[in-house]
């Protein structure tokens, strides 16, 4: 099986690290795109070990530091052989090339915000109208959260994605390297509501912007 780490551009040398199962990293050019992968003899299973996740992440991180642009691959999709990999790349070559250009010179930051009562607690309502009223309040509180936390950061990003969570939202930001310092400053200076839990992480390789379906 072939395990893919990412599609890269301008990679000078393969990093001095091993891939999953201690396999050596390999590189191959297809359709003007460069792929970095490793071969594994273990069959794909439904369970993914934390170790595999961390190993994959480390390889992607190392590649990101040595490339002009990278599209990190999602863990869990193995290819039976070189032929299957080549077919898959050929089918998406145009999209991959576009995505590479979009992420060039950028890193990703993430935001996760939760409010204890934003949507988790079942409104202990007595009437149907009360129930909807509480739901409406929760929705408005969430909108307020988004406006205070997400929008100031979105303005500094080249692209963003955002999704609802049961009790808040999470978002990802594609930030050009030259804007990173400004972004960090904005992230640490956000106007938080006292009851909100907010986590900002990064810089990550651009996982959330590696395909066109995102934002």
């Amino acid at each position, binding site marked *: 099986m072939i395990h893919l780490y990412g599609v890269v551009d301008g990679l000078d040398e393969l990093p001095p690290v091993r891939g999953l199962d201690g396999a050596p990293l390999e590189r191959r050019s297809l359709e003007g795109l460069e792929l970095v992968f490793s071969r594994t003899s273990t069959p794909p299973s*439904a*369970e993914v070990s934390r170790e595999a996740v961390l190993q994959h992440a480390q390889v992607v991180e190392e590649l990101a530091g040595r490339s002009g642009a990278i599209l990190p691959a999602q863990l869990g999709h193995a290819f039976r052989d070189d032929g299957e990999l080549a077919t898959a790349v050929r089918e998406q070559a145009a999209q991959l090339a576009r995505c590479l250009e979009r992420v060039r010179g950028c890193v990703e930051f993430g935001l996760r915000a*939760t409010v204890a009562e934003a949507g988790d607690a*079942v409104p202990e309502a007595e009437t*149907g109208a009360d129930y*909807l009223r509480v739901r*409406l309040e929760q929705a408005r509180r969430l909108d307020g959260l988004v406006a205070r936390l997400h929008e100031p950061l979105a303005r500094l990003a080249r692209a963003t994605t955002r999704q609802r969570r049961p009790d808040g939202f999470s978002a990802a930001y594609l930030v050009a390297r030259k804007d990173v310092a400004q972004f960090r400053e904005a992230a*640490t200076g956000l106007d938080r509501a006292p*009851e909100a839990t907010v986590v900002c992480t990064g810089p990550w390789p651009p996982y959330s912007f590696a395909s066109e379906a995102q934002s």
Partner: protein
Amino acid sequence: MSELADKLVDVEGDLHRIAGELEHLPEAFPRRVNADPEKVEKGLAQLVLTLVELLRQLMERQALRRMETGTLTDEQIERLGETFMKLDRRMRELTEHFELEEGDLNLNLGPLGDLL
């Protein structure tokens, strides 16, 4: 990864809620819904409940929108609200019955992201 600490830009508030989600991620593998016959029922329940949850959220959101724009009568608001309240309670019961967590009610559609 050695530099995980370098990836934290800022954090505020009670982290226990968020940290607890880590237990679920490596189990909720996106692509394959179960390989073990004993877990078939749970896997199917997860799929069905996810879809019901999607519909519930869509409908509730629609009702809230109509409520805000004032295009629902008081009677409609009351009836809809009661229905959604019951549905919400029933969903929680079913989810608990199948030993699922709220975070399990989701589908990863690969490139299309998460359903919910």
